[in-house]
């Protein structure tokens, strides 16, 4: 039961969203108007709709269609799709209404070429929503769930210069996002209990889940997610404020799709979590309160969209209540309610959008009598409103009938026997009054505000609300068993877990629901007639407990806590660093499982007869390293400290050479020198007056800090000593990994150097990353100092200066403005080409002798650095203008990737070892192979050289414009 085509609708819509985003480019958006663009884009949801329809016959025979691709195999998480009747119902609504909304949006935003942004968001939202209802896995579901929250945030805040829109968007994100977190935890618990994340394994484990100790917990958590998303009381407060979204978005998100996500989730999980007392009471009570709240508050609104928002809340409560019931008729009512509501509510929203668009207001106190100006809008709106009112022969009537049939079902507990029917009747009456008010006060009577002058909307714009309105008319009247009844039955069965029969006959004989319906209609008409008085009464009744106040209080509280928490931050970097280090040390001591029991007997004390071959040299090198490091702490001037640091690094190089690790020693030497050069250059660049102060504070008599730092340092040192000692005396004689490299280095990579083989071949991707990091460091320094530094400096440096090759009148000065001798000049002239030759040899024979592309690059850049020291900044830039750092970096990295791909084409593994020279039959010097690793070395060399030149260039650039006579490095 796998069907890879299931993913196609999602991909089509997603691609359309990306295509819409492309029209953000002015070159493209100039060529096509928004309305035409929307026609093209609407093809995507339409195609998806048709594609999904083609699965309908399959659903009659199979329970569900599934598809998955392996994703995080080790965690057992796959990207799964699951398509059954319930998913199908929602997916059809999403793609069908989605098509209408996209077309409508094209008309709504006519002339606004910035509307590609809206189209992108709405298509992205559509893709996410489709993914949500077709997810076959709780993780997949959750990802799409969050995606809908985030994209709806973007849609609500679409008019982002409107403060109300931003606040509404934030509120919606805050509430639904918070629910999303609860949902995530709940879903994780469910999949933990079921031993799998896919719905296939969850849905038939209902008995295990219901009997589990965590059942109440997971129910509450998942319900929190669903209730917040579906605007259930008391989380309903976000929905009315989300009306600040453009009307096409409201029509789509807040009628047909996003708010139904919670309904979908609960219906989906009903077979697994439902059919318990807790479930029944939780959903019934929440749903009923929501339903009554929505209906009651809806009648008192003055804004057309707000009326619709509250009636949506009311409808959502009703649907939630249906899921809580465990009867066949309830699930029938659920699916009919979903379909009816989606049809009439999307139509009404779009109609309200038209009214708003054409008259300029949605205020019921100003509208009235626009039926003459907008006859078609009036007719369509009336049909949709009649369906909302639940009047025959519209589809909404059937929805209300089934609701009432559920309300009088004999299986209800006695405490609800009266409450449930009366709540339904009152809701029905209020809904009827609301729909009457919507139509009457907008279209009939006389205009309350003469300034409001409407005119008919373009036909294309009317098309979108007309189709669902006509459908809600037609579905009720068509006779006989039909396809849509079968679809609804499949959806209801999937939610119920048992077979549900659905017939769409309007007339089912004279029965209790019909009588109740009559009561509701009568009551509703009364409410409608006396609506002014009712509304006046409602406005007088001040609701003491406003949940918006709770929300505001929570947000304020979070802000207060944040302010309090940031007060702890006193902004001293040194303290942060000390706390972090102390924390790390504490963690290592506490939980690091340190080897305190060291077998001291095993330790061989060094025999101080010094007859050992290398021991004396090692001790010397260690002494040099540690001593120089200590000196760099104690020496007074920064310049000497840098030199001591260099000496310490050279000590490390000696140790590496004694290991023996010649490759490392070589790199250590060149890097150490380069680091020293760059440090000295950076020191020279720093503003002069700061030197004195900085050097004084190096030895400030700040005793508490010295003691604190000393303690941290001592503790850190002790820990490292313990670990090192333990590692050294318990060394295995055999390495688990290295043996493989030793055995295969030559045969697999053609390299004699095992270290080189690891770097260039076995772990070539690491090396590629490494040079990328190095290159980014170089580019970052360049960007920082060229563009950011100028912002803060007094003598605004030109952002991008031109060192032209024009005649420079300044005599050649070395670094710090010192004159340098011609002898050294000659040396510099020789050094650069020489280092280049050395570099080439390093790269050519790196696979059998120490040295590699990195060393080669650093060596050349050292020669360049030498030029900077000898000739000074300006002169060097003028003479070495052909060393283009950024070009070198990009050439290097692109070459590495190109070589990797070329090798992949030959040996189907990225950067695999391929001897291109042999392949092409070239005659090359002995011992040299034109192989992947050589070309990779060249790439490394180029990018490293480029990056190092950027570093030297930028850091070596004197901050003073002209050479100064006193050497700044020397003080």
């Amino acid at each position: 039961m796998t069907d890879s085509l299931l993913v196609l609708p999602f991909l089509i819509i997603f691609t359309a969203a990306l295509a819409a985003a492309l029209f953000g480019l002015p070159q493209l958006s100039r060529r096509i108007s928004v309305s035409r663009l929307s026609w093209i884009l609407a093809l995507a949801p339409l195609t998806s709709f048709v594609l999904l329809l083609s699965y309908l016959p399959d659903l009659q025979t199979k329970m569900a269609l599934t598809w998955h691709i392996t994703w995080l195999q080790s965690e057992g998480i796959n990207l799964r799709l699951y398509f059954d009747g319930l998913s199908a119902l929602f997916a059809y609504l999403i793609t069908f209404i989605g098509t209408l909304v996209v077309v409508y949006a094209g008309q709504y935003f006519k002339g606004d070429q910035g509307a590609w942004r809206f189209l992108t968001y709405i298509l992205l939202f559509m893709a996410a929503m489709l993914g949500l209802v077709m997810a076959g896995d709780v993780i997949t579901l959750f990802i799409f769930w969050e995606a809908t929250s985030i994209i709806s945030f973007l849609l609500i805040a679409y008019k982002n210069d409107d403060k109300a829109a931003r606040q509404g968007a934030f509120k919606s994100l805050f509430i639904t996002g918070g629910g999303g977190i609860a949902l995530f935890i709940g879903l994780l618990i469910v999949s933990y209990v079921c031993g799998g994340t896919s719905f296939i394994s969850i849905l038939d484990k209902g008995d295990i889940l219901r009997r589990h100790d965590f059942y109440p917990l997971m129910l509450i958590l998942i319900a929190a997610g669903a209730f917040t998303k579906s605007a259930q009381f008391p989380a309903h407060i976000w929905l009315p404020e989300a009306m600040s979204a453009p009307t096409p978005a409201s029509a789509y998100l807040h009628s047909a799709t996003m708010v139904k996500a919670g309904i979908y989730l609960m219906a989906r999980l009903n077979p697994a979590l439902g059919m318990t007392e807790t479930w029944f009471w939780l959903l019934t009570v929440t749903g009923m309160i929501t339903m009554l709240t929505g209906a009651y508050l809806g009648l008192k609104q003055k804004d057309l969209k707000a009326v619709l928002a509250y009636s949506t809340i009311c409808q959502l409560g009703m649907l939630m209540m249906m899921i809580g019931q465990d009867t066949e008729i309830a699930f029938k009512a659920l699916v009919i309610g979903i379909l009816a509501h989606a049809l009439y509510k999307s139509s009404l929203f779009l109609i309200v959008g038209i009214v708003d668009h054409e008259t300029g207001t949605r205020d019921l106190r100003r509208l009235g009598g626009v039926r003459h100006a907008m006859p078609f809008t009036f007719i369509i709106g009336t049909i949709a409103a009649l369906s909302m009112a639940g009047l025959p022969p519209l589809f909404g009537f059937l929805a209300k009938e089934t609701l009432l049939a559920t309300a009088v079902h004999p299986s209800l507990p006695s405490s609800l026997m009266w409450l449930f029917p009366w709540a339904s009747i009152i809701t029905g009456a209020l809904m009827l009054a609301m729909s009457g008010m919507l139509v009457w006060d907008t279209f009939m009577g006389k205009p309350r505000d003469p300034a409001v002058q409407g005119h008919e909307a373009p036909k294309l714009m009317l098309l979108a609300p007309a189709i669902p309105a006509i459908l809600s008319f037609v579905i009720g009247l068509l006779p006989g068993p039909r396809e849509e009844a079968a679809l609804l039955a499949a959806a209801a069965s999937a939610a119920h877990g048992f077979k549900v029969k659905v017939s769409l006959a309007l007339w089912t004989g004279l029965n209790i629901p019909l009588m109740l319906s009559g009561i509701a209609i009568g009551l509703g008409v009364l409410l409608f007639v006396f609506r002014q008085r009712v509304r006046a009464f409602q406005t007088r009744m001040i609701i003491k407990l406003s949940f918006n106040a709770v929300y505001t209080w929570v947000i304020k509280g979070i802000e207060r806590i944040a302010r309090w928490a940031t007060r702890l931050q006193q902004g001293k970097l040194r303290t942060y660093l000390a706390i972090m280090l102390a924390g790390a040390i504490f963690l290592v001591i506490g939980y690091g499982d340190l080897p305190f029991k060291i077998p001291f007997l095993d330790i061989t004390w060094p025999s101080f007869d010094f007859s050992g071959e290398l021991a004396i040299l090692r001790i010397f090198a260690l002494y040099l390293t540690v001593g120089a490091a200590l000196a760099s702490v104690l020496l007074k001037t920064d310049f000497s400290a840098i030199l001591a640091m260099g000496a310490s690094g050279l000590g490390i190089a000696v140790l590496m050479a004694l290991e023996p690790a010649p490759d490392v020693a070589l790199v250590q030497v060149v890097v150490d020198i380069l680091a020293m050069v760059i440090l000295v250059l950076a020191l020279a660049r720093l503003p002069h007056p700061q030197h004195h102060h900085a050097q004084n504070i190096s030895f400030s008599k700040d005793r508490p800090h010295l003691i604190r730092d000393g303690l941290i340092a001592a503790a850190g040192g002790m820990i490292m000593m313990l670990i090192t000692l333990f590692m050294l005396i318990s060394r295995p004689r055999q390495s688990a990994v290295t043996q493989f490299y030793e055995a295969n280095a030559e045969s697999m990579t053609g390299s004699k150097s095992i270290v080189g083989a690891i770097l260039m071949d076995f772990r070539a991707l690491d090396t590629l990353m490494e040079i990328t990091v190095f290159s980014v460091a170089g580019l970052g320094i360049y960007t920082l100092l060229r563009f950011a530094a100028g912002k803060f400096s007094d003598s605004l440096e030109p952002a991008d200066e031109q060192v032209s090759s024009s005649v420079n009148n300044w005599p050649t000065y070395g670094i710090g403005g010192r004159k340098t001798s011609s002898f050294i000049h000659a040396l510099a002239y020789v050094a650069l080409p020489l280092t280049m030759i050395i570099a080439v040899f390093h790269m050519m024979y790196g696979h059998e002798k120490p040295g590699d592309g990195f060393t080669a690059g650093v060596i050349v850049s050292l020669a360049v650095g030498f030029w900077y020291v000898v000739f000074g900044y300006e002169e060097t830039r003028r003479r070495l203008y052909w060393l283009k750092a950024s070009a070198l970096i990009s050439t290097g990295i692109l070459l590495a990737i190109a070589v990797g791909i070329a090798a992949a084409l030959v040996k189907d593994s990225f950067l695999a070892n391929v001897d291109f020279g042999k392949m092409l039959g070239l005659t090359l010097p002995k011992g040299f192979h034109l192989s992947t690793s050589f070309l990779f070395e060249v790439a490394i060399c180029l990018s490293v050289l480029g990056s190092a030149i950027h570093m030297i260039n930028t850091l070596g650039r004197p901050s003073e414009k002209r050479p100064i006579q006193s050497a700044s490095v020397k003080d």
Partner: protein
Amino acid sequence: MEIITAFAVGLLFAIDIFQTLRRNILRSAIGLVLLASAINLFLLSSGAYNGIEPAYVSETGSVQSDALPQALILTAIVISMGGTAFVLAMINIISTRYKTRDMDQVNGLKN
């Protein structure tokens, strides 16, 4: 020999951490460079065995030094070099922006 190496590594770490915590921001950077080399030394001592020959394919059959930590150290050296250079650029920015090299006077994080 082990105990001397371990002692030296521990001492080096202590010195470097201390140096990193100095008020003079350039000293702190020097501490960072030194810390990187201390870590490299520490990595080296995690190798499986002490060889007497470098890790090259040869026929002599004598014990070679462990190639794996060496490869790791090579990468670490390069990365820390890039990091150091970047830190220096940041120091440059700090010293132009705050007109100081005293870490305690860098107060942009204070609310």
